[in-house]
């Protein structure tokens, strides 16, 4: 433990010395009496000071929680001698507590003192709590000992999942069984068409009504149910943030909701974090993949980088053919804008959900600032027009609006528009 002696103690010793010397010089006993209390404090404080033997244990009632949930942290302090302890559990801005933190408590000799701190998880993230900062002081605060005791405890706060009523179907499905009705024809449930019987067709597929009308065998054709590959393409180059909320928060929340929902219907979901720090997860399905994605999202952060970067840096398997690439981007960094157009040029089925930074930007007060703001919005409009021209649906998603709304807009766009084929 690091020991600190209050500067007050040295001041008192100096006052005592000055009083004694003045008493000697002037021959006045009153000055010695005046100095006596300070001399006593200067001598008694170091004499009674002893290094404390404090033990601190930090524990959480669980190590995983959802946003807005409360996790109980418990601090157990014990010491063989009675101590006055100031204890502080440093919390990241994403966690808050209604309990008093820091607080000063008395730890009785040989007894364990338990302090409860209910932690409210305000925002998602992976955190390492502790060790708590403790300061033991003598009764008058002349000597203090400080240390971090108690070890670390991890806490993962997962983003809350938004209920999505409908998901975007990709233009093409994969070959494995899933819940998405394929556009192709094959074995399935959904009726697709009828055709003339061919050797090898099963008798149960014969459409007897059509056969009777045409006097030759006709069979039904169905759309097979297939799975799809979805790649969530997250732009982490930059973040527009104000008042504790920002585009990255919305992006992560949307990605979690989409991954959760797509994986529920047996699709394969991959993740690409395209930013200063590049990371990816190959598409896979199942609960384990959901946890992988969410854990990866928890680590996501904005890393400032000036490096030129395009989609060539991504491994080919992270962007499988026929995959639906769902880009969540604030459209603030030109590198992402260029990479997305590049993906479209490579015939990927691309959808851009623009996580709007507009609510997080102050237009400014002066005329010049407002002009710059209008120009900036016009340049964004021009960028959207470029995407639409390339056949890419791009929808603006504003803070506070349910994610269903932009997804429905994309579905409407795709109902009437198709990407051009070369």
């Amino acid at each position, binding site marked *: 433990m690091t020991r600190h002696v209050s500067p007050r103690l040295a001041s008192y010793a100096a006052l005592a010395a000055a009083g004694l010397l003045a008493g000697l010089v002037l021959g006045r006993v009153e000055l010695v009496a005046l100095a006596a*209390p300070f001399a006593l404090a200067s001598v008694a404080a170091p004499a009674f000071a002893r290094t404390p033997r404090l033990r601190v244990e930090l524990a959480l009632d669980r190590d995983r929680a959802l946003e807005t949930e409360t996790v109980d942290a418990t601090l157990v302090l014990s010491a063989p001698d009675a101590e*006055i302890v100031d204890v502080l559990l440093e919390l990241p801005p994403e966690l808050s507590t209604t309990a008093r933190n820091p607080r000063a408590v*008395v730890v009785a000799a040989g007894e364990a003192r338990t302090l409860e701190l209910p932690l409210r998880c305000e925002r998602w993230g992976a955190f390492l709590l502790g060790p708590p900062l403790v300061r033991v002081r003598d009764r008058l605060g002349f000597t203090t000992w400080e240390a971090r005791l108690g070890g670390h405890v991890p806490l993962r706060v997962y983003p809350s999942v938004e209920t999505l009523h409908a998901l975007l179907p990709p233009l093409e499905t994969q070959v494995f069984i899933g819940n998405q009705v394929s556009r192709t024809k094959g074995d399935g449930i959904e009726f697709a068409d009828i055709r003339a019987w061919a050797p090898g067709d099963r008798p149960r597929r014969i459409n007897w009504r059509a056969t009777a009308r045409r006097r030759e065998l006709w069979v039904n054709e169905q759309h097979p149910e297939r799975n799809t590959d979805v790649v969530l393409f997250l732009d982490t180059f930059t973040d527009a943030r104000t008042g504790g909320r920002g585009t990255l928060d919305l992006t992560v929340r949307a990605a979690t909701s989409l991954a959760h929902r797509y994986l529920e219907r047996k699709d394969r979901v991959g993740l690409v974090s395209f930013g200063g720090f590049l990371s990816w997860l190959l598409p896979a399905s199942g609960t384990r993949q959901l946890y992988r994605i969410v854990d990866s999202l928890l680590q996501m952060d904005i890393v400032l980088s000036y490096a030129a970067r395009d989609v060539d840096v991504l491994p080919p398997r992270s962007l499988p053919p026929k995959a639906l690439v769902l880009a969540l981007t604030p459209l603030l960094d030109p590198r992402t804008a260029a990479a997305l157009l590049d993906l479209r040029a490579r015939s990927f089925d691309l959808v851009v959900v623009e996580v709007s930074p507009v609510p997080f930007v102050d237009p400014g007060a002066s005329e010049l600032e407002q002009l710059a703001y209008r120009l900036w919005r016009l340049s964004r409009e021009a960028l959207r027009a470029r995407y639409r021209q390339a056949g890419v649906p791009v929808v603006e998603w504003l803070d506070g609006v349910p994610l269903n709304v932009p997804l429905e807009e994309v579905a409407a766009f795709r109902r009437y528009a198709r990407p051009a084929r070369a």
Partner: protein
Amino acid sequence: MLSACAYGGVLAYTVAHSVAAAPGTAAIGGVGALVLVFLLVRADAELVAWPIGLLGAAYTIALVVAGRSVDDAAPLVGVALLLCGELAAWSIDERLRIAAERAVVRARAFALAALAFASLAVAALVVSLAAAPAGGGLAWTVLGAASAVAVVTLAVRLARRT
């Protein structure tokens, strides 16, 4: 507030102790009061010694001007000055946003009271010993000087450690 009360009490006593030196002692004590207010407002515990030192100097002047008779209230003045410093430091500590439970406040109050009583006892012992007919001489002078040197050494060592 209690610290200012202790200071005000000692200042009033000092001014009243020697009417002849009252303007000087009041002026020095007033400067000390300003320093005390300043350190309480700025929450600067390192300045605690200055108002005490200034008031101690004013009291010394009052003693010297008043004459040779021993002031029996000197132990009380010393304890009041110590309480002034300790209460000011406590007041500054309370500004920190550390929620202290009642037992912590009680423990400090008991400790401060114990220190005050022990100080009063020691100071009273010093005054009463001085009144005893022990005689003068080189030995007492050397003992006094050695005590003073020991305290100065202690002060220097503490200053280095802090």
